[in-house]
């Protein structure tokens, strides 16, 4: 099922966890949902941190791609992708198979560990 209006990530959007962490990949009867966006506006784009509710727990995550078209020459993904992250910025999983946009490299300081485990770039 598809929500029409805002295809970027905001409160209560269902997201897809893209890394190979146990928390993201074990099946649960409810999909992981965003409950807060760490942003002045409530809209999360690529590179923003959000709070997810997964398996009854709260976990921070980094947005790596959304369905909403961004600036030209940037990729637009068919699903809202997210990578689970700790409070200090360390990723929970060990590998990211899905492609990640090159724009995240701009903030190499904050996301260096996430970019290190990513395999494909778009």
């Amino acid at each position: 099922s598809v929500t029409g209006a805002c295809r970027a990530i905001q409160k209560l959007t269902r997201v897809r966890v893209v890394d190979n962490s146990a928390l993201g990949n074990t099946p649960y009867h409810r999909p992981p949902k965003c409950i807060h966006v760490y942003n002045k506006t409530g809209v999360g784009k690529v590179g923003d941190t959000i709070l997810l509710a997964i398996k009854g727990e709260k976990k921070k995550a980094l947005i790596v791609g959304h369905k909403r078209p961004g600036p030209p020459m940037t990729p637009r993904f068919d699903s809202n992708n997210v990578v689970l992250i700790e409070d200090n910025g360390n990723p929970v999983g060990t590998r990211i198979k899905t492609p990640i946009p090159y724009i995240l490299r701009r903030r190499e300081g904050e996301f260096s560990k996430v970019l290190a485990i990513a395999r494909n770039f778009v």
Partner: protein
Amino acid sequence: SCRVSSDGQPPKFQPPSKPVIIDKQKQREERRFLSPEFIPPRGRTDPLKFFVERKDMIQRRKVFNIPEFYVGHILAVTTADPHASEKTSRFVGICIQRGGKGLGATFTLRNVIEDQGVEICYELYNPRIQAIEVLKLEKRLDDNLLYLRDALPEYSTFDVNMKPVTRLDHEEIPVNKLQVRMKPKPWSKRWERPKYNVKGIKFELPEEKMKEAQKWSQPWLEFDMLREYDTSKIEEKIWKEVSEGLKK
């Protein structure tokens, strides 16, 4: 020739028939392609604005070759990216739509990488683009292939390392009459409705649904005279301008 002449002497030398030379240069000139972003949209803006834009577009095309391509072609685009390793990034995909007019003309490429559908909207005249290669020439039945988002992912996957398919004739671009199979409904748009005029989908919906979709048809639209925009004369003028500009 084994004709025996009446005199008894050997027959007169008959030279062989002249070979027919097909001058391919002449044939190429007959088919001309004007990129759709050159044609100005209908409106009340000053034609001087479009003239100045076309000058800039011709200037860019002299420096960088933008090949002829339609929706449905498979392209590989290399762009300069400061954040990429080796500073260039290459993306291969099928062109699903061409939008915009003038210098802001864009085309969107779609591909499925590692089970994730990715679409990138490139600007034709952006100086960051370093090369556009046409890997496969193939027109489709529709003007835009946005329905590929709701089709099975096999129709949007293309090998990143595929080699360019050589084209034999310089005459016609083949039309692929592929009928695409869709994922189960709901789709992002109701493609069965006549407003989208989609010919490239194999609808496996029951007949009642197809008839219900025809309720939204607007058969008077094709006869609406105020919506007509005849571009033939404008195209002729612009074609002359562009070809002269490129020859200089």
